[in-house]
């Protein structure tokens, strides 16, 4: 009997051993994933700061070309002012349009908040009229381009689940490939997107957006990255609609950081009559 019992307990011990090993193995397998997930989120946060929040403020002359599949072009030329109020959070944007010619002097202002919908105002010189524009759709096109407001001013990191899909080289640059899927399916047009984040500058080198059917529908590419006052800046970028072949090319012609933008720049008075020194 005893012998049998000890034999039984021996088997039990042996089985427990296996179980422990299995548990440990599982844990080992799980651990890196967990840390990866944390990493992915962190990488995206870092990337957003590098991409959208460099400096205290910024002034750029933006030259934007909207190009249809058969090569027809529309041009948008504007000066964009941006001031950061909170790292990774609130920002204010001021945009003055030079082109198209018939919208010259039009201005546009955005207060971007971390936790709620933006406030937007538009000034139309032909009607001498300032109107608030309700902004409950960040997914709509930015000035008719292939970029959405979200693409221009950033999407809340917390809105998506991020994971590192792989790491690979893009050209000369080592990059993380982060897969981001919206937590709320209705909160985004994409079912997931892939971002290639440069390990050096943390700027996005490439992004691919996949729709609800899993089909690629648009691609972002950084075509030129330059160092400006110590900040790495994407000075040329393209967003291409994979379905229509339409694309938007953006070039930063003058980029200045930390120019000392005052708060009164971002008011209705300046919207109607912006100061020359800020918009030129």
């Amino acid at each position, binding site marked *: 009997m005893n012998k049998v019992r000890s034999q039984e307990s021996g088997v039990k011990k042996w089985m427990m051993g296996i179980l422990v090993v299995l548990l440990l193995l599982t844990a080992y397998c799980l651990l890196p994933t967990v840390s990866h997930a944390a990493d992915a989120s962190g990488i995206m946060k870092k990337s957003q700061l590098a991409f959208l929040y460099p400096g205290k403020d910024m002034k750029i002359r933006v030259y934007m070309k909207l190009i249809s599949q058969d090569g027809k072009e529309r041009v948008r030329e504007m000066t964009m002012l941006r001031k950061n109020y909170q790292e990774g959070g609130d920002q204010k944007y001021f945009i003055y349009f030079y082109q198209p010619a018939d919208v010259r002097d039009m201005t546009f202002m955005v207060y971007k908040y971390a936790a709620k919908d933006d406030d937007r105002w538009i000034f139309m010189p032909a009607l001498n009229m300032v109107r608030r524009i309700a902004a409950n759709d960040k997914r709509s*096109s930015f000035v008719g381009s292939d970029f959405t407001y979200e693409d221009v001013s950033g999407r809340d990191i917390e809105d998506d689940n991020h994971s590192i899909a792989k790491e690979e080289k893009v050209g000369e640059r080592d990059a993380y490939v982060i897969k981001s899927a919206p937590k709320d399916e209705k909160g985004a047009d994409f079912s997931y997107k892939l971002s290639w984040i440069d390990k050096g500058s943390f700027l996005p080198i490439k992004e691919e957006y996949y729709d609800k059917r899993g089909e690629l529908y648009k691609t972002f590419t950084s075509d030129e990255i330059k160092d400006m006052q110590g900040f790495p800046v994407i000075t040329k970028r393209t967003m291409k609609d994979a379905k229509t072949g339409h694309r938007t090319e953006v070039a930063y012609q003058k980029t200045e950081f930390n120019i000392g933008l005052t708060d009164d720049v971002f008011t209705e008075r300046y919207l109607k009559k912006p100061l020359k020194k800020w918009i030129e």
Partner: protein
Amino acid sequence: MKRFSLTAFSVDHPWLVIAIVAVITLGFAIQFPKITIDTDPKNMLPATSDVRVYNDSVEKDFSLHKDTIVLGIVNKHGIFNQTTLEKIAKITDEILKLKGIVTRDVTSFTTVDDVMSTGDSITVKPLMSEIPKTQQEIDAFKKSIYENPLIVDRLISKDGTTTAIYIPLEPGANGKEIADRVKDIVAKEKGDEQYYVAGDPVARDTFGAEMFKQMGFFSPIAGMVMMIVLYILFGNFGLISSVMAVAMISVIWSMGLLIGLGYPVHIMSSMIPVFLMAIATDSIHIFNEFYFRFRETRDKKQAVLDTMKVVGQPVKYTALATAAGFGVLAIMHIIPVKVFGIFIAFGTIVIRLMSFSLIPAAMMLVSEKNILKAAGGEDEKENLAPECFYQGRAARPRFKHSGTSILKKLGAIGAHKSTTTVTVGIIVLIFAAIGISRINVNNNMVKWFKKGSDVRKSDRIINEKLGGTALGYIVAASEEDDFIKKPETMRYIESLQRDLEKLPNVGKTFSVVDYVKRINRVFNNNVPAFDRVPDTKEAIAQYLFMFSMSAKPSDLDNVVDYPFRKANIWIQLKTWDANAMQDVIDRVKAYTAQYPLSGAQFKPAGAAYFNLVWNNEVLYDMLKGFILALIIVFVILVFNFRSFKWALIAYMPLLFTIAVIYGAVGFMGKDFDMPISVLSCLSLGMAVDFAIHFISRFRRRIGEKSEVEKMRSLEDEEKILTSQPLNLSTSQLPNSELITDALLWTAARPGKGIIRNAILFATAFSAMIFAPLTPYVTVGLFIAGMMFLSALMSIIYLPALIVMFRRWLFIVDGKTSRCSLPIYGRPPEAD
């Protein structure tokens, strides 16, 4: 003498001939797996045709989609309630996940951009970004919708019972498949709502799918019915198999060649098998005569050779007429029309080749006993004849069984009461002419479905409630950048729209002006007085810029081009009838002529416009071909009879049949559409057949008889001749009794072949009357009607005409023609 040798060769080596035919047939049959199918009627016009190139450029200029499916959602209690609105949102979400659709441009309550003013701010967002829940919210939502002219009649019916989801398709997507998946989505929903799926791609691709199913279903049925009728008529399985084999062989050869040469099977070419089957039944005349001959001689080989000698001529020329009727389509512009014509002509020639080789070979192989049994029936009936209307040859059959005596009576009506017959004919012709003048050349694919069908019902309901399922465009084009942004251009387009909306079939129009007016109103605190075009170009430009800052790019792209040189006015039509778009174009022409706008041109485009052009090009091409074929068939008749006069007489049943059929089409209010246009060529080839058989055999008969008569009693004949009211100086004019007798003989004997052919045909194709698609019903009715008409015309009308014009017919330049010699002096040419 080649034809003769072919028949003789076939008679001598039946198995060899059959083997050769089988091998060649196999060669064509192995092409079949390479089949490609193209059911898009659009492809009837080549991709390089002006209208397609222009439409493509318009689609590019305005980022438009070729094909759009419309899902109509109807709740007879009104759609403004939380449940229905939730369903609309849910269904839209489901649709957005479908493959093959252009997700970004699906238009529904939840996706269409709307500009509205809420308190102190302007909102550009989907019309229904959140589902209103309380009655108050629902009322406010309803109010805002009806204030927006961009939405009314497009997304909401005036009575509030109907909304729609517009689903643009990616190029190459199959409209029926997507429509089916949309139907699957809505099938999951329960409640008061009813769902209707409509639109050009649905009709087109449903038809495409159905077409092949029905061709696969009804062709064999027609074939089976044909076999049964043949069995009843000829009672010999071996022989009828050879008729069916000839039909099959011609189908396999011509379809095999078509596929082998890499042509896709089109809507039109899919009808080739049915047509060839119809044409193949011409070999009945051979069997008909063979049975008579065999009963007479009891020598099978001799009977075959004799039959071919007698029937060869008409069979050859009927085939030639049919081949020419279709062959003439080869010089038309539209490629599928050409292909259709050429391959039917080819198939007809194959049939004729088989008539002189395979059929004689088959006749040799059938056991004499069996034929005798079958032919004996014929013999027995005919031997019962107590009277002998012609004494010349005792061996001639006498006609007194039911079928032949009826035929004789029919022939007698024409022969004895020629004036009355011709008068009645003229009256009928006058009526037919009135009917023909009412014919409407139009192609409306939705009408290819029966009234109660899903496709037709959906189309009707959506057209009743909303702006319309048929879409056309009027493009305003200038050479000047920003021309469209000018207030005067805007106002001009606006008044043009109002003018077009007066047309009964225009359900809704829509342009960039509607956006501008809407934004103007919204920016001015929603005051209705601002629902107009602002006064300066800058204001318009800035409104549009503002709009483009928030809306989907396609919103503006669909209505203006990149440099604002062109504007696109959307015209929703309530019918796919080509005339609806023609009315629009005429109206635009009239308007722009009356109030010219300098620097701008207005041109039509879009699917409805394409339909119109297609209509004109394809249908008028067919019509042209048809008229040309009419002329060519006449020329062939002249050659066949070596006589202009006889050709004219033989032409009459054809003209008459066609006139009556098209007259009926006109009276029924049926459009001259693609199926009808295709059939007209067939009618031509078939309707003339009977006349050729009738007149050839009649003239041969009378030629033989005249000589026999002459030899027998020259004096008698002279006596008869002198007794005629108009005494003719020549002694060779056949006397009227002779003519009448020969006519009655022809009506009874070859006439039997004619009636057999007609019955066979009409029965086989009447099966198609039960097809669910109207073109097949049309084919069935048309063919049946045509066969009976032309058979009756040949048997009644030809005798009447021949009797009436006998002097004119038999006299050439004051002398009587010896009709038999010109025809048979030369044997028909080689095959």
